[in-house]
């Protein structure tokens, strides 16, 4: 295997912030001599951090779906909608396209993130060297789609701000949307804390 040498092997490492190449140090408390940010070969506790944030996101995902996220109040009716019931409502009300978009953004994307992150973390931990390229692609995908699942939160926030006609009609955010926002933020953080270089590390170690 004539894999290209890695910085580690050459006794070097670089600062994450200012990209200064320094001599290799195993000391976990090493700092960049130029910008004084922490220096490490790989992100510190990357796997643990990702796991922790992912688990927290998964936990918040339950109340995010159980609690209603939005209350639409009009003259004659008052509707509390959870994410799923909102999707059903949209579907029934004759906008299946919108329903699909919301379903994708609010259900599919978070679920995908959970699954992909779990797969990545497990595979890294098990030192599996299989399909590293695909896993790297998956990671990029997760990073890319991460913020799109904020769609629901945006909808609620915008509607609450726009539709405010006192008695006639009103849209109010309900606690569910907070949990949902927390889920999205946590999954994004989880993806950010994951160090994609770990995917290649394992291949090398084999």
């Amino acid at each position, binding site marked *: 295997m004539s894999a290209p040498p890695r910085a580690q092997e050459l006794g070097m490492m670089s600062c994450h912030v200012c990209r200064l190449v320094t001599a290799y*140090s195993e000391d976990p*408390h090493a700092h960049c001599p130029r910008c004084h940010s922490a220096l490490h070969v790989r992100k510190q506790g990357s796997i643990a951090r990702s796991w922790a944030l992912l688990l927290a996101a998964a936990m918040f995902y339950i109340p995010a779906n159980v609690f209603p996220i939005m209350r639409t109040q009009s003259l004659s009716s008052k509707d509390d909608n959870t994410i799923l019931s909102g999707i059903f409502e949209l579907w029934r009300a004759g906008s299946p396209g919108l329903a699909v978009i919301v379903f994708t953004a609010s259900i599919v994307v978070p679920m995908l993130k959970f699954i992909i992150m779990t797969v990545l973390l497990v595979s890294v931990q098990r030192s599996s060297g299989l399909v590293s390229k695909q896993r790297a692609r998956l990671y990029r995908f997760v990073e890319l789609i991460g913020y799109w699942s904020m769609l629901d939160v945006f909808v609620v926030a915008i509607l609450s701000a726009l539709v405010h006609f006192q008695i006639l009609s009103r849209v109010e955010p309900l606690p569910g949307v907070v949990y949902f926002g927390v889920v999205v933020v946590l999954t994004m953080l989880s993806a950010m804390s994951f160090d994609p270089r770990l995917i290649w590390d394992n291949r090398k170690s084999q």
Partner: protein
Amino acid sequence: MSDTNQGNTPVQDDDLPQPEVRKSKLGFSLIWLVPIIAALVGISLMVTHFTSAGPKITVTFLTAEGIEANKTQVKYKNVVIGKVTTMRLSKDRTHISVVIDLEKDAAAFATKGTRYWVVRPRIGASGVSGIDTLLSGAFIGADAGDSQDDQNDFTGLETPPAVTHGAPGRRFVLHASDLGSLDIGSPVYYRRIQVGRIVSYELDKDGKGVSLQLFVDGPNDRFVSKDARFWNASGVDVSLGADGLKLNTQSLATVIAGGVAFQDPPGPHEETAAPEMQEFTLFNDQGTAIAPPDGKPRYIRMRFEHSLRGLAVDAPVEFLGVKFGRVVSVNLDYDEKTQTFPVIVGAVVYPDRLGQAHDKLAKLSGGDGDSEMPKIMSGLVAHGLRAQARNGNLLTGQLYIALDFDPKAKKVEFNPNARPFEIPTTPGDFDHIQEQVASIVDKIEKIPFDSIGKNLDGSLHELNATLKQVNTELLPEAKRTLQGVNKTVGTANDALSEDSPLQQNIGNTLEELQRTIRSVRAFTDYLGRHPEALLRGRGADAAPPVSTPATPKQGKDVQP
């Protein structure tokens, strides 16, 4: 990780900057706090969800109108205490059952005696209610009971309860012959202020009347004394009786919605507040309600020998001017002996209305109960008490029965043991007028219209014959005479007309006469001048003077 160990020995150590080394303060990763916090939040949510869950109850209604699962709320005093979660039709399809999740602190509403009803907009005669539900949708109203026993199945009310539980006030029961225009929620008035409402009504068990339950709000319930009188204040009470036209209403609202009013009777009465559920009689109008109690009614009968046109059922029976009872029946009878149709009038009288008089008379007669009234009456009849149908209202011709003393009345037998006993009658005032009219008619009848007519007829015949004679004989004669006269006048006219021969003859004659007279004058003139001519006759004519070539006529003119 042998590779990394290998890398520990840097190749170009001095070329590369050495990293600084700082000691970290903490030895373990704080990141695990995040899932721990998440777990704590999740657990706390679960815990609050389970602890805040109240009892689940099922309420059945006849219709699900306005109720929606997951939307319809349950409210008590307009505070949300629960929510409808599911709704389904009963197996026999006669009603629907609604499952309600009550809130934790509303557990007291899952007890016996709690009532549930659907609040919808209702427009009744007594007003509009639940108008806010027009916009917000129907909700389920609740009213908790007293009981502590748990109950999870309820039957919902179809109409909102008139009285909420624990409201200050008291309930009373009214007995009436019919419901009239009253309804649940009809107002109860005291001095024209609404102080309560009808809560429920039901038929009496024997079906002969109606029992109404009414609720008088506190603190006004203290005005319902033990002696209070209730009357039906519904509608417009127009009565045209022997005493004239009467119009009575309580308020405009009651005209539409009906209502009940109460008041204490005038005069001495018991003023202590009536206890809960005391029973009262519902009178038809204020007059009868306020009147002193009637006591036991007695039935009397009267027999009139003349027509009683204008006597209606319910006409008053008065004793010396005191309203004493009322007529209940007017029937015809047939008397075989006299072959007439007497009128039998039945009346109900209330001796208690006579007040002290009745008490004293009762004491004197010494009777009791049923026998006392005939005894009193027999005494009174012996003193000349007679029933008489009098005209109460000349305009309408309404009659009433007056019991009055007639000192000139003939003695009649009175059987105090007859049931019902009969009070002797005397013809009324109106009958006197009738008698007088009858005598006038008699006198008129005595006038010999027949013979007058016959005589008049004969005279007219004769007149007729005379006139015929005049027509046939006298008139043609007269006609003829007139024609003669006409002719004569015509002849005379002809004779006298300007161009008639007579006229001309007369003219000629007159001319002749004139000439004659002239010649006579000439003659006399000649004689004057020549008187001898008488004797000698006329001489030869003298030669006519040359200078006077005039005619004799001219000569005459010149001469004088």
